[in-house]
């Protein structure tokens, strides 16, 4: 038997062998629990996924490709990617700034900011969509101003981007805040005492420490940006080939009895979900190892 020299080895050993033997239940309990979990998973996760791809390919691979190559579908895909490409980087910047502020500084309103960041999670997406209609719509607060200057926000691409940003903005910040809080500020303080400037500290010390958590948040944020339905539906105006995103296009196709095309386009969303899942699993591992690295090196230091 290999002698475990430090805590890092202990943890990696433990990761490989699963939970300790002390917690073992009788065999039949374990079997029942596993079967229940698997059935549940199959019924609620695997089966729908199978249905999506099955319906999508019902009329053959050619019909599938046709449905995706259709100009309206392509424009929906393009718009969805545009919205994500604008919303995600902006939310990345905002998320890092907010997490930095909340994680490292004490200031008035810090708790309020933490709470407000969660607002998009707690508000129904339909309501958040309506809020933007009330702000930027013809009769909204900024309506007359926008009309005077011939600017279109609602029922146009900017509205969709804003709605997407709103519903996705907690993801990055939410992921980073606990990470930065548990890590503490010791390393940054050390860097500062050695004469590093703010940017230097951020790029050389903080960022390497939070990078996987950051990517994790970005991944979730992207997934939600692509899949958002409610808020976008309210501000879209549903102009075909112009302001329809992928989820809206799926709904329209389904309502037009075009079931296989609807599922073909929906399968793109399912694929993006699967990719997200894969990235997420990979990143979760990285984050775990990072945390172990730190605890490990601290132990060693002692």
């Amino acid at each position, binding site marked *: 038997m290999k002698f475990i020299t430090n805590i890092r080895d202990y943890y990696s050993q433990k990761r490989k062998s699963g939970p300790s033997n002390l917690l073992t239940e009788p065999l039949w309990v374990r079997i029942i629990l596993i079967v229940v979990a698997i059935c549940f998973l199959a019924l609620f996760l695997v089966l729908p996924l199978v249905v999506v791809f099955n319906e999508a390919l019902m009329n053959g691979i050619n019909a599938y490709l046709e449905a995706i190559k259709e100009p309206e579908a392509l424009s929906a895909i393009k718009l969805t990617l545009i919205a994500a490409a604008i919303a995600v980087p902006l939310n990345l910047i905002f998320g890092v700034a907010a997490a930095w502020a909340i994680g490292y500084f004490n200031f008035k309103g810090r708790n309020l900011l933490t709470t407000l960041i969660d607002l998009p999670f707690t508000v129904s997406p339909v309501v958040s969509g309506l809020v933007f209609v009330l702000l930027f719509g013809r009769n*909204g607060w900024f309506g007359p101003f926008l009309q005077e200057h011939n600017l*279109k926000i609602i*029922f146009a691409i900017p509205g969709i981007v804003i709605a997407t940003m709103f519903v996705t903005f907690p993801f990055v910040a939410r992921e980073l805040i606990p990470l930065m809080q548990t890590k503490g500020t010791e390393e940054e303080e050390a860097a500062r005492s050695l004469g590093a400037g703010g940017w230097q500290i951020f790029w050389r*010390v903080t*960022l390497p420490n939070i990078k996987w958590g950051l990517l994790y948040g970005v991944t979730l944020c992207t997934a939600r940006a692509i899949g958002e339905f409610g808020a976008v539906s309210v501000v879209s*105006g*549903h102009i075909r080939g*112009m302001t329809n995103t992928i989820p809206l296009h799926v709904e329209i196709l389904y309502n*037009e009895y075009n079931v296989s095309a609807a599922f073909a386009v929906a399968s793109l969303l399912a694929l993006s979900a699967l990719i997200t899942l894969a990235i997420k699993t990979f990143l979760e591992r990285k984050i775990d190892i990072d945390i172990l690295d730190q605890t490990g090196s601290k132990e060693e230091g002692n």
Partner: protein
Amino acid sequence: MSIKVKLLITAFLSAALLIAPLSVTPVFADSDKTIELLNVSYDPTREFYEQYNKVFANYWKKTHKQNVKINQSHGGSSKQARSVIDGLEADVVTLAMPTDIDAIYKIGHLIPANWKTRLKDNSSPYTSTIIFLVRKGNPKNIKDWNDLTKNGVEVITPNPKTSGAARLSYLAAWGYIMKKELRSLDKISDPKAAKEVQAAEKKARAFVTEMYKHVPVLDSGARGSTITFVQRGMGDVLLAWENEAFLAINKLGPDKFDIVTPSLSILAQPSVTVVDNVVNRKKTKEIATEYLNYLYSPEAQELAAKYYYRPAHPELLKNKKLAELFPKLELFTVDTVFKSWADAEKTHFADGGIFDQIYISGR
């Protein structure tokens, strides 16, 4: 390590920031002298307007040497009206009900009060009605409105609070009893027959109450109900737009459903108008007006019939077979039985109105 991360993130950020404007440009930049119109319509007209837009673009190019591209937006009729009021820049609206367009005047002030008189036939270039869709062979033997309350019959119809088709179905059922009791609907406007009319209204109310006891689910819109009936297989009879019923049969197999035409039903007048506030700003009034006028041309009337709307002028159709597509039945207007749409809304569908009362007591 830190340099790698730095590079990675810088690359990601700059890529995202570069892609964003690049991919936005082509969306905004396709306006090479092509006039663009936006037609805001309701759900089932999509296929019709897709064809009509081509026909009109050809016509306009021939007569005015200009290219025109017509964008379409479809959704629930009342919801679409709301979007136009909130700023969706529709040059024309082509909605399911005159009341939806009235809202654009009353709440949005975007069109004048007399919008209905600006085009022929109350601004309805095509009409429709409510008929029954039943399962193949009509196993429950449903022939007319009074069969809907037979034992064991399940009726599928959307919620009158949110759906135009549902309101028409409700009013049609009501009108059927009025006609049965009074024998002539003209009596309704005759002050001498007031007592008789009151008695008939009582009967109508009882019938409609009973009918909604046969409704297992109320979907929010017509398409939702059609899908409940057709795809989920619920219910024995669907109260449907005539054009929706034809379309469902066409798209999902004539071997599954039959259309049953009741002895009498209600005349639905989908209405169209130019949105003055928008066209004046966009300077598209001329072409938008012509877009609607051309709906009355023989070519467009024939196209409407092809998509199962009853053309306002069937005499214009070259293809007489198309005119015969529509079964003959007695159609009454909302105004004959309920005075006006506004009155019908107030008495029957407003909060606390008759529908609320019977639906709550029915449950």
